[in-house]
């Protein structure tokens, strides 16, 4: 078990490193922060030269990456190369950490909803069959096919005017406010995912219920729901969670769309704001944060698989 966890952590670290490397190189080659001086040359050459010296802009991209990477422990993400609008300090790290926190909360809330409702829909579909199954599958299909931003726009249009939910634009605090704030974005995120993953639960559960141990359990007189919930369900969750762990990056993309529609101050808002600045250092920091979130959530789902199916880790450890 410990060996398995250690290997997963090493993998997660290598993932974050890989993403940060590619992001730094690609953004660094695509965007030149010197664009801000394009209109005032030669008047502002001193500032321009200072910026070049500070960010080593004339060094090779690999050398710059090395400086950035080795500076991480002491400087964090460092400072923005392009002055940030609406921001007193130029430090990249603190606002980004706040944004990542909001995104992580939304991801967690959305994934918990996804887990619960995928299982509910999957179980009902697999057990009832017939009309309930057909109806649920159709609904799942449509909710999975609609892009997250569209689901979000529709929910915002229909449900925000009711006044049950808090708007992210107005301030507020406390647990009740958090629930009112996160409910719609999390449901938006979950709707699409439930549509996709309830199908995995349904087909896996149907297959498990046909296997010998389920038939034996029933033959020995166990109630139907006991067979499902105590015996078959746990096994049928494995394929669902495995697919989820591979899809975490796409889930985060959907999370971005949901955040954006509901004006949450998560990573998406920083990302969109930083686009117009075309600051490679800010963009790299955001993408690195994204990778950290993805690696962390993937690690959790991997551990969940290990707990659901004890054979997985022990066979490889």
């Amino acid at each position: 078990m410990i060996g398995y966890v250690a290997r997963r952590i090493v993998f997660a670290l290598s993932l974050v490193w890989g993403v940060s490397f590619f992001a730094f190189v690609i953004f660094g080659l695509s965007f030149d922060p010197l664009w801000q001086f394009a209109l005032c040359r030669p008047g502002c050459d001193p500032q321009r030269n200072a910026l070049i010296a500070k960010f080593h802009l004339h060094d090779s991209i690999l050398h710059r990456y090395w400086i950035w990477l080795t500076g991480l422990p002491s400087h964090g993400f460092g400072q923005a190369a392009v002055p940030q609008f609406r921001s007193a300090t130029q430090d990249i790290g603190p606002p980004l950490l706040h944004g990542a926190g909001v995104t992580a909360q939304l991801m967690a809330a959305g994934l918990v909803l996804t887990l619960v409702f995928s299982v509910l829909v999957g179980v009902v579909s697999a057990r009832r069959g017939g009309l309930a199954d057909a109806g649920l599958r159709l609904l799942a299909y449509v909710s999975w096919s609609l892009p997250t931003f569209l689901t979000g726009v529709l929910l915002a249009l229909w449900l925000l005017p009711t006044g049950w939910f808090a708007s992210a634009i107005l301030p507020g605090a406390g647990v009740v406010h958090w629930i009112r704030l996160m409910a719609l974005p999390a449901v938006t995120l979950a709707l699409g995912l439930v549509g996709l993953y309830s199908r995995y639960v349904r087909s896996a559960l149907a297959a498990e219920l046909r296997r010998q141990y389920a038939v034996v359990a029933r033959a020995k007189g166990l109630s139907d729901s006991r067979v499902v919930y105590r015996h078959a369900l746990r096994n049928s969750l494995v394929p669902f969670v495995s697919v989820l762990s591979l899809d975490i990056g796409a889930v985060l993309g959907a999370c971005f769309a949901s955040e954006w529609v509901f004006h949450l101050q998560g990573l998406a808002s920083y990302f969109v704001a930083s686009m117009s600045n075309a600051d490679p250092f800010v963009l790299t920091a955001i993408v690195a944060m994204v990778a950290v979130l993805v690696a962390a959530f993937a690690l959790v789902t991997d551990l969940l698989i290990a707990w659901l199916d004890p054979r997985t880790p022990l066979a490889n450890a």
Partner: protein
Amino acid sequence: MAALLVVLVFTIVAFIAPRIAPYAGSQLFFQFLNDPQPPSLHGGHLLGTDVIGHDMATQLLWAIRETVLGGLGCALGATVIGVVVGAVAGYVGGILEQLLAWLVSVVVAVPAIVVLAIVVVQKSPLPLWAFPATLSLYLWTYVARAVQSSFATLRVREFVDAAHASGASALRLTFRHLLPNAMGAVLVAGTGVVGQSTVVIATVTFFKYGNQQSDRPTLGGLISNAAAGTPFAPTPWWVWVLPTVTLGLFLVCVNFAADSLDEVLEPAGSA
């Protein structure tokens, strides 16, 4: 089958949109500024006009072109890259296979809409192929994963040994023997990519950091305009419903087609 037909119709419409659109994409009818016309058979605006006086039918046709061709183009590019990379890794196996698995994890750890940022930040007008070309550099991973895993099961089969024994080269073995048997997986993954890339393109254009030229409407852009509303009056229903239903219908049909293909071609591996 019906789903596949709808997708086909969308594709044809996407190609011939410039010919069948009743007006030029950017043409404004100033008499309808802030006075959107409902859909009607008379008056030359079959699907009505939007809030600033665009003809909805024209907007919708151009948006379908932009979005659907983007999705299809991306699937094509992603399939070509994915087949080549997946086939090499799946045939050679070993360390290459693990390297590919790692690379795929790295690529899919970044949301696709972030990837499109690289293109979108460029200030100059984007050519039609900019989105699909960039996205296929990202979504090839799905095809590569499918090809590689199907190669992994095919590699140990007898007919591969037989071909090997009769002196087939690695290249011939890969493309004459292994790939045709993996075609089902390729087709299923490729159709799936159409849906994914369409979602991503629609999302990015919805975020409005996409193509902002008014003569190049996109489905995401139309929905975004409708959601933004007007300061004068609530957005009329047809401005809302038309792009929403169009996008929804296309995606449901693409996904349904991908699923049916999966059931027909890959009976063992379907979810």
